[in-house]
């Protein structure tokens, strides 16, 4: 611990002068960065519109009340599509993610090259938002439910595979060893030693991702990838705020219900 000698009196200090200077410089740099960022955003903002915000918000609320309840009937099909996008997308992702996870886990990877490829797949799937995947797939396959399902699947592979391979790396090695000592082959060890241990985690992860995907599927339509987002986009662009309001309420209900279902299923799985 550094000591400062001040006119014969020794004063203990927590950090050396160099350390505290470095810390001070670090904080100063951070403040400078934030100030610069704020300045940039300030420059890009039309403040007249911002001062207007309370009025605009009140106006928006008035115009979206009462929600257009009669429109609910026309929303049945979009809600069904949204549900399908989330569920089928999650299923596809789960099927594809399982082998990727086994290739990526240190204790089950057959080779280092395959492990690297699996980890790369996981990272690229995870770092791109499902809406960006939606943009890509709408451009490729045209607008519709198919693009949405694939967008959800592509984004979820990385998520499911990452959590699953972490679960595989944390298994108890004793059962695996026991199965190996019976002379079982690789696939048999996998099926009888490893899979039973990670199955509950796998189920939990899949349901958890399904819950997230419901939320994502509600907005995928904003980029044309099917589901209730298409109606949201249409209502928003025609400034029909009463319809926007009923759609948002419906989305909120959908998310709350899916969260409750997912919580119950996860409790049953664990």
């Amino acid at each position, binding site marked *: 611990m550094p000591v400062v000698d001040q006119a014969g009196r020794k004063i203990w200090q927590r950090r050396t002068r160099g350390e505290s200077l470095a810390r001070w410089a670090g904080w100063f740099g951070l403040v400078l*960065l*934030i100030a*610069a*960022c*704020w300045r*940039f*955003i300030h420059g*890009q*903002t*039309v403040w007249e*519109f*911002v001062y*207007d*915000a309370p009025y*605009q*918000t009140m106006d*928006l609320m008035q115009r979206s009340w009462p929600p257009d309840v009669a429109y609910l009937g026309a929303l049945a099909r979009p809600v*069904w*599509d949204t*549900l*399908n996008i989330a*569920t*089928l997308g999650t*299923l596809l992702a789960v099927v594809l993610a399982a082998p990727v996870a086994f290739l990526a886990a240190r204790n089950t990877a057959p080779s280092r090259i395959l492990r690297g490829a699996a980890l790369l797949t996981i*990272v*690229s799937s995870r*770092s*791109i*938002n499902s*809406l*960006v995947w939606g*943009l*890509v797939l*709408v*451009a*490729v*396959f*045209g607008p*519709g*439910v*198919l693009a949405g399902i694939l967008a959800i699947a592509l984004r979820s592979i990385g998520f499911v595979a990452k959590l699953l391979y972490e679960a595989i790396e944390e298994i108890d090695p004793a059962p695996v060893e026991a199965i190996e000592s019976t002379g079982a082959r690789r696939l048999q060890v996998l099926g009888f030693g490893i899979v039973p241990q990670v199955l509950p985690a796998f189920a939990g992860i899949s349901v958890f991702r399904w819950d997230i995907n419901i*939320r*994502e599927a*509600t*907005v995928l339509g*904003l*980029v044309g990838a099917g589901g209730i987002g298409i109606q*949201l986009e249409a209502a*928003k662009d025609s400034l029909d705020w009463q319809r*926007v309001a009923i759609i*948002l309420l419906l*989305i*909120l209900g959908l*998310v*709350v219900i899916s*969260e409750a279902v997912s919580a119950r299923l996860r409790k049953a799985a664990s």
Partner: protein
Amino acid sequence: MSRRTGLILLLFAGYLVAALASLEIDVERVAEGVARGGKFLGGFLQPDFASRWSDVSSGMLESLTMTVVATLAGLLLSLPVALGAARNMAPTPIYLACRAIVATSRSLHELVIAILFVVAVGFGPLAGVLTLAFASVGFLGKLLAEEIEEIDPAQLEAIRATGARGPQRLWYAVVPQVTPRLVGLTLYRLDINFRESAIIGVVGAGGIGATLNTAFQRYEYDVAAAILILIIAVVLLAEYASGHVRRRVM
């Protein structure tokens, strides 16, 4: 297998059949799409950074600045919310109010929040900052509240025994216990905010999303590929840097 699981599986199989039957897949369009997919992958092999560089660079700069400001604002706003949403810290009415804030923020998708903020404050990055900050409050508030609920009560009691008042108890007993986790969560949220900033531009809330959307609408796959490569690069860089910082703090 119990009868109940069998029934659930049967219902699920029925749902699957109905869902798959209701898919309307235009086979011709998909076949055409596969060729286009090839073109898109070709774009990835030859990304075009040059021809729209001024749009791309200003979009990226906007995304990055939005991320920084929104994460800071979200962090500052989430601290009181997290404290209120921790059952061992707050009286019941405050607890319920803060939990309600967290639940609202978490159940609305960023894109939906962005639509509302764009109406309120106009197009541009400020709407994006507000959106990301609002979403960060729910995320950080929830996870930090859970952390506060799990602190070691012995330390709190020891500080209380010295006669410390509320704020002092908070500063000397709670803050030191949750700071490492708070740093980790903030860095994680920084990463998420950047990824989200890449899409909220689709509805006019600033950032690289608008440029990306335009690139796809013009079928400029090489420009889109360049943007996606930049996004992945920044995410990887941020992950590497935050791993470094986290190791030093914890």
